[in-house]
């Protein structure tokens, strides 16, 4: 029964990892569009939430409360990074910005490693329902289904907020033309702060959704070595963001699902090919880069603003 439809099962798993790539990509694109900084520390900001959740849950704090507190920590870390560091760099200096985000990633990841070093988490309370559900005669992991549903729901809510609310419109105005937005009375710093806060919360949510997958394999035991894979999640997230030319939010989300599917469906491929998943993803990203996908999504004016 279980082996009857491996394709459906793998598709579900691909969509659920794709959902996390998509959420990461949404955060990356939001921050990049509004502030011009491509955030290489995105994963480390999300990691802080994961560590906070592990710590609190391990101390016996109710799972839901621990989740909410953890989700609140990442925006604080992201906004702190923006207010204390990124605001002080001239927007045009792309290389320095990237180097600094790498430094911030190192800083936050080291902090996380320190907390992990002080405390061994031996017991990881699952915050997503475990077990199986049946779908067209195939058993699926409940975790996967819940992950997909949660990610799609939250992404839809976020996109609607970005599209229809006053604050969302202000953020879009800043992305399109910062000077004109400022002349129209939009507070640039406030918009950037909001973008960093929401982007960081999305990163936290994405990594918290991945956590059960990482931890599930070893019966809930988490060590310093387990935080390494979180960093590599950023690469498919970049790929997903590139599908939307680093600027288009819905396409970035769709790109996330696409990358998740490609990655997991390749598992079914015959042996030499299934090992080349990382290379396939890298080639796909290179292709997207060479296509210069941003051409399809931005107006000439906005491109100038991004490249300036």
């Amino acid at each position, binding site marked *: 029964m279980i082996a009857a439809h491996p394709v459906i099962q793998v598709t579900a798993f691909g969509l659920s990892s794709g959902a996390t790539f998509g959420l990461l990509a949404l955060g990356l694109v939001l921050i990049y569009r509004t502030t011009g900084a491509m955030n*290489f520390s995105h994963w480390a900001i999300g990691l802080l939430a994961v560590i906070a959740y592990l710590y609190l849950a391990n101390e016996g704090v109710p799972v839901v409360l621990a989740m909410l507190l953890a989700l609140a920590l990442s925006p604080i870390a992201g906004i702190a990074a923006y207010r204390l560091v990124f605001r002080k760099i001239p927007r045009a200096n792309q290389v320095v910005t990237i180097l600094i985000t*790498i430094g911030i990633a*190192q800083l936050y990841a080291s902090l996380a*490693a*320190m907390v992990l070093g002080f405390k061994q988490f031996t017991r990881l309370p699952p915050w997503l329902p475990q077990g199986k559900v049946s779908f067209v005669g195939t058993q699926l992991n409940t975790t996967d289904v819940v992950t997909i549903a949660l990610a799609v729901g939250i992404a839809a809510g976020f996109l609607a907020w970005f599209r229809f609310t006053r604050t969302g419109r202000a953020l879009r105005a800043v992305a399109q033309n910062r000077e004109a937005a400022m002349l129209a009375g939009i507070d640039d710093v406030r918009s950037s702060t909001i973008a960093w806060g929401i982007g960081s919360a999305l990163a936290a949510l994405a990594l918290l959704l991945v956590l059960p997958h990482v931890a599930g394999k070893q019966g809930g035991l988490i060590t310093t070595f387990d935080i390494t894979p979180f960093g590599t999640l950023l*690469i498919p997230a970049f790929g997903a963001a590139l599908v939307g030319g680093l600027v288009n939010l819905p396409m970035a989300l769709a790109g996330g699902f696409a990358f998740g599917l490609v990655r997991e469906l390749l598992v079914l491929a015959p042996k030499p090919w299934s*090992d080349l998943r990382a290379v396939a993803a890298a080639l796909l990203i*290179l292709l997207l880069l*060479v296509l210069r996908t941003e051409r399809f999504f931005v107006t000439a004016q906005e491109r100038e603003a991004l490249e300036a």
Partner: protein
Amino acid sequence: MVTGVAMASWGWPFWLALPLAAAATIPVSIIVGVTAVRLKGLYLAIATLTFADALGETFFKYGRVTGGQSGWIVHRPSPFRSDASYYVLLLAVAMALVWMVTGLRSSRVGRAMLAVRTNEREAQALGINVYKTKLTAFLISGVLGGIGGAFLALLLTSVTRSAFQSPLVEATSILLVTVVVVGGIDRALGAFLGAVALVVQQQVFQGARFFFAYFGIYSAALLVLFLLYRPGGLMQVARLQWRLIRARPRVGIAAAAAIIGLNVGLAWLFVRLS
């Protein structure tokens, strides 16, 4: 990477495996270079990081060839078995390569590279093939990386995934960036200064319980602070300090002494406490 495979699996001597390692980087450099030449800034950064991670992950997946996650053991060639003699060898090779790269700067190809860096369009107008020049730069740096990787493998004597870990995560690669930035990115001597500063600091933190976490936090903070306030690195700090000493000797010397004293004091305090 390839050195390890050639030496461990095929039983090749090091002196044969080294050129192979250097040669093996050429096709990879071409693949990366052909795409990278078309990219700029942010896009280039994403491309290189992606490729570094993909190659690292894939190499160690082929368990039969590379020994999988546990990696493999390599041995240094006979006259350089001890750490001291290996150091002499490394120093000689590094000097030779620095000499060659310096020579490159004044060669025809090197001057074409400088012209391309300064102004791409002007270089093109002067008849320089921009595409070919950039690709050459990628090739040369790829070969240098291959040689560096081969010697790193012999230094560690075992080759594992973590030693060649993803640049996003692994402290070693970030450390390299930190060394260059903290020292001073626009001067050759700067990299040396930065390396000395960080190695000293590494020794200070060595005894700490969470060495990696402390050192990670410390070096990351250094990287960010230097980029924000002293983009010229320690070289710039030294220059500014020297200017102050020249202009107002008493204040300058007092400030220099205060900076050095504060650093030594903090290091001493940390060693005592841990």
